C-alpha cells in the first residue's frame, strides 16, 4: 500500500462554544480519492480550510508529505491546490490574467505553455481572453478548476467541484481528475452532494455528522453496513440520525 500523503490526527475546531470539527482523524494515500460526505454544517468545509492552513485547529495536527502543516506551510502549500464553488477570482482580470497570477504565486516555469495546456484540458479556449466578471457560473467553476490544475498539485482539495457544471463538462472534469490521478498519482479530497458522483469518484468515503466521523469505508462497504443499496439512502439515514455512532466496515 502507498504511503499516506495527508494525515489528519484528532483534528478539532471550536468557535467559542460551537464545535465545528470534533476529533477527526483520517489519512489519504498517494493517488487516492477520498470523498468527504455530510449534510450542511457537518464540518466538511472547516476541515478543508484547516487542511489549507486558512483556519488554525483548536487541537490536533495536519501533516502532508510527512511534514506538519503549521511548521512547513510554504513548502506544503506549494504542492497543494483547491477549488471551491464558494471562492471567486478577481473579476476585473481576464481568465488568462488570473491564471498568470496563480502561476506566478506558485513559482511556475513555462507559464504560457502550461496555461495553454490547462485551457485546452478544461475547454476554455472560447473565453480565455474574457474578463472574469462576464463568465457564466459554469465557466467560473471551470476557471476555479483550471486554477487548481494549473499548478500541477500533488494534493487537490475539491469542494463541490462540479456543482454548477453542465453534465458534459462535469463528466469531462471527473474524467480529467481520474486521468491525472492515474498518470501523476494525484491525491484528492472530494466533497459533493451528488451521491452518484461521490460513488463514481471516491475510493473511500468519510461521512461527517456534526463535526464527527460517523461512517468510513468504501461506498459498497458503507452501504452494506447500513443495509442500503443506495448511498443516498445511507446519507439520509445518517444525516437524520441525531445519535449516529461510528460505523467502520
Amino acid at each position: 500500500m502507498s504511503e499516506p500523503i495527508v494525515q489528519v490526527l484528532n483534528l478539532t475546531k471550536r468557535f467559542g462554544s460551537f464545535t465545528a470539527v470534533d476529533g477527526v482523524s483520517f489519512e489519504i494515500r498517494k493517488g487516492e480519492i477520498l470523498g468527504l460526505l455530510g449534510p450542511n454544517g457537518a464540518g466538511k468545509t472547516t476541515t478543508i480550510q484547516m487542511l489549507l492552513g486558512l483556519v488554525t485547529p483548536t487541537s490536533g495536527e495536519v501533516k502532508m508529505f510527512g511534514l506538519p502543516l503549521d511548521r512547513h506551510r510554504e513548502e506544503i502549500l506549494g504542492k497543494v491546490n483547491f477549488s471551491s464553488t464558494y471562492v471567486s477570482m478577481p473579476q476585473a482580470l481576464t481568465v488568462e490574467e488570473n491564471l498568470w497570477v496563480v502561476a506566478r504565486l506558485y513559482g511556475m516555469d513555462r507559464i504560457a505553455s502550461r496555461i495553454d495546456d490547462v485551457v485546452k484540458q478544461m475547454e476554455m479556449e472560447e473565453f480565455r481572453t474574457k474578463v472574469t466578471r462576464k463568465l457564466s457560473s459554469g465557466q467560473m467553476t471551470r476557471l476555479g478548476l483550471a486554477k487548481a490544475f494549473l499548478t500541477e498539485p500533488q494534493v487537490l482539495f475539491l469542494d463541490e467541484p462540479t456543482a454548477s457544471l453542465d453534465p458534459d463538462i462535469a463528466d469531462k472534469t471527473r474524467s480529467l481528475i481520474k486521468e491525472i490521478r492515474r498518470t501523476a498519482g494525484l491525491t484528492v479530497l472530494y466533497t459533493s452532494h451528488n451521491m452518484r458522483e461521490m460513488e463514481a469518484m471516491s475510493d473511500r468515503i468519510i461521512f461527517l455528522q456534526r463535526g464527527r466521523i460517523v461512517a468510513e469505508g468504501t461506498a459498497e462497504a458503507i452501504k452494506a453496513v447500513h443495509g442500503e443499496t443506495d448511498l443516498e439512502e445511507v446519507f439520509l439515514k445518517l444525516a437524520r440520525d441525531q445519535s449516529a455512532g461510528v460505523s467502520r466496515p
Partner: protein
Amino acid sequence: MKLHRITALLYRHMCLYKRSFPRVLEIIYWPFVDLVIWGFITLYLQQFKEALPNFVVFFLGALILWDVLFRAQQGVTISFLEEIWSRNLMNLFASPLTPGEFLAATMTLSVGKVLVVSCVTVLAAFAFYSFNVFVLGLSLIPFVLNLIIMGWCIGVLTTGLIMRYGQEVEVLAWGLVFLFQPISCVFYPMSVLPVWLQAIAQMNPAAHVFEGMRAVIATGVFPTAELVWAVGLNAVYLAALIAWFHLMFAACKEKGLLVRVGE
C-alpha cells in the same frame, strides 16, 4: 520572502488598474481637486504674505507632501480591500504566499501610486501657481521617504483592523489617516498646538517631517534632528505594526475570520 509571489500580486493589481478607468481616476482626482481648491485659497491669502513670508511654499508644499502620506496608506489598505471585494483572499492565503509577502506587495504598489499622484500634483502646482516643489532641494527625498513609511504604518494598522473586524470598519480605509492629520502639523507649526497635544505630536513621524519642511523653507538649513526623530519613530512603528499584523493574521486564522471576511 519570494520575489515571484510579490510580483504576482503586483501584476494582479496592474491588470486591475489597466482595465479600470475609475480606479485610475480615483488615484489622481482627489489630489488634483485638493490642490486646485487649496491652491486658490492660498493665492487669496497671499495678500497677507508680509505677515507670513513663504506662505504659498509652506502651504502647497505641505499639501503635496500630505498626499504622499495619504496615497501610501491607501496603496496598502485599498489593495487589501480589492482582495476582499473580489473574494480572493482564500486563493491568496491557501497558496504559499506569506502575510509578509502580501504586505511587501501592497507597499510596493503604494510607492507606484505615490509616484503617479506626485507627478500629477507637482505638475499641477507648477502649471496653476508656478510653484516648484523642488525648492525644498535634496531634503525632499528623506521627507518623502519618511512620509511613505508613515503611510505604510497607517495602512498596515488599517488593514489589520479591517481583517480583524471585517467590512463594517471598511470606512477606516479612508478615515483613519485623517485622525493623524491634526497631530501631523501639516499646515501649521507644532507650536500652535496645546502643550499636551504637542507631546503627542512629538511621537508622530509626520509632524517631524512637516516641521522639517518648514525649517528648510524658512532657514535653508537641513533639519537633521527632525529627520532623525522621523526615521527613528518610523522604524519602531513599522517594525511593531508588521509584528502586530502577523499577530492579527494568526488571530483571524484562529477565529476563522480570514475565510469569512467580505461575506
